[in-house]
């Protein structure tokens, strides 16, 4: 087994990224990995369905966090997908024989160590495979507190799960590190700029701040369109995405706030601590929304909101996040100019 430090994390992909980079001597915390990967996002896509309901996601596409972080830090990575199942397992074995830990995309439904109530057909879970003993693999799954073992057959099934976004045996590993001292300031600035662009400037109504507003608008009509029962399960689906492992949501806002705090240190700009506080407020609002929605679909407690009231909460969140990212965008732009002047 490779001497791999397993650190539990809040989110699978940022966790695997930070664990893999730490293994190669680049000290990076999980919030930093999320921030550099511009992992804060929102999308509501009625044209993609999961369990028959529109996909609401709080993250960019699986794999993007890892590829962005490594690109920003000047690290060469290799990614492979396989058509042949056996070939994918052999390739994994070859890597492990060279003491290279590999990130693997897995379907959650087939993961034997996952609690039963969390096992849905969700195919974008990241784990790091760090060793093989007696035909079983040792994996470091960031959302599980300890290292786990998984049999050859089970791992193969996970890597070839089917459904929305099939993983197709995808695996990735770090090939070469160009420099041990990357330009952290530049990386932070670039990633914040990208986050601002994704949250504010995608000209489609499904993504970023506009996506939150779209969800709010659609939510008002759920009850008429679907009837109260299906409206409730739609709402439950959104809340699951909001708080679930792998998708984050409110949790992502807090993590991004933690990243902004770190960024304040890296850039020597105390103003980012203020943005962190604003982001925390946005996260608290998401939690509040989740709690109100939870009461709604459980039909419990005295203060049950209507769908209109919930949508109103979402609109407020959208306004708050728009405000944060507009401020961030301005600061980052100015920072670049100042840096150019001083050089």
């Amino acid at each position, binding site marked *: 087994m490779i001497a791999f430090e397993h650190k*539990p*994390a*809040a989110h699978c992909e940022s966790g695997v990224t930070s664990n893999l980079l730490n293994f190669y001597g680049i000290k990076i915390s*999980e*919030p930093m990995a999320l921030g550099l990967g511009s992992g804060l996002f929102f999308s509501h896509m009625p044209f993609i369905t999961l*369990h*028959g309901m529109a996909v609401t996601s709080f993250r960019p596409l699986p794999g993007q966090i890892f590829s962005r972080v490594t690109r920003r830090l000047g690290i060469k990575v290799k990614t492979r997908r396989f058509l042949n199942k056996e070939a994918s397992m052999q390739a994994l074995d070859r890597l492990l024989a060279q003491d290279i830990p590999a990130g693997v995309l897995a379907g959650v*439904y087939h993961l034997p160590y996952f*609690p039963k*109530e*969390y096992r*849905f*057909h969700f195919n974008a879970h990241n784990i790091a495979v760090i060793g093989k003993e007696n035909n079983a693999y040792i994996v470091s799954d960031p*959302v*599980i*507190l300890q290292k786990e073992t998984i049999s050859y057959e089970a791992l193969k*099934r996970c890597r070839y799960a*089917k*459904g929305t976004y*099939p993983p197709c045996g995808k695996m990735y590993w770090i090939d070469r590190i160009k420099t041990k001292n990357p330009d952290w300031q530049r990386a932070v600035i670039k990633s914040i700029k990208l986050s601002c662009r994704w949250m504010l400037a995608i000209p489609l109504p499904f993504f970023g701040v506009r996506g939150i507003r779209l969800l709010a608008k659609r939510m008002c009509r759920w009850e008429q369109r679907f009837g109260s029962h299906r409206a*409730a*399960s739609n709402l*439950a*689906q959104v*809340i*699951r995405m*909001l*708080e*679930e*492992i792998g998708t984050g949501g409110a*949790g992502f806002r*807090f*993590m991004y*706030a*933690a990243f902004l*705090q770190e960024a304040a240190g890296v850039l020597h700009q105390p103003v980012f601590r203020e943005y*962190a*506080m604003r982001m*925390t407020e946005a*996260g*608290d609002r998401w*939690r509040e929304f*989740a*709690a109100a*929605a*939870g009461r709604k*679909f*459980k039909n419990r407690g005295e203060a049950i909101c209507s769908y209109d009231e919930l949508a109103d909460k979402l609109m407020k969140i959208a306004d708050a996040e728009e405000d944060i990212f507009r401020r961030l965008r301005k600061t980052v732009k100015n920072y670049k100019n100042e840096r150019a002047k001083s050089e």
Partner: protein
Amino acid sequence: MKIEETLQEEQSPGSTQPRNIYYALDEQGNYRQVLSTGCKAKQDALSLIWECISKEAETTRQEVLAGKKSPLAYHIKMRLLDIPMLAAYTGLPKKTIKKHMDAKAFLQLDAATIKQYADAMHITEEELKNV
């Protein structure tokens, strides 16, 4: 979110309830990792979804027992599968699988096809035939 605000439920020893990492503020206003038992709304959402699934599965089971649907229909409900996904797992055409949801068509299936379905769902042929 402050550290005190994270949910810390008492857990019985040996409980399999997972604990998640959250980021929360300490007294100095710095972010820190905390272990928490999660949040109430999420657990409610999960239990609602499982309630829906088991309710649907039970309805299908009754239909199977009444001879209206094949056991296959029940097993895919139980495993949260749908026809396109089962088609991807087995390699059979969607139309064929749809046909096999019918009790009569299922009875006429040959052993090889039954095995294909059973392997895809990781159960034995006997389990597949029973509900």
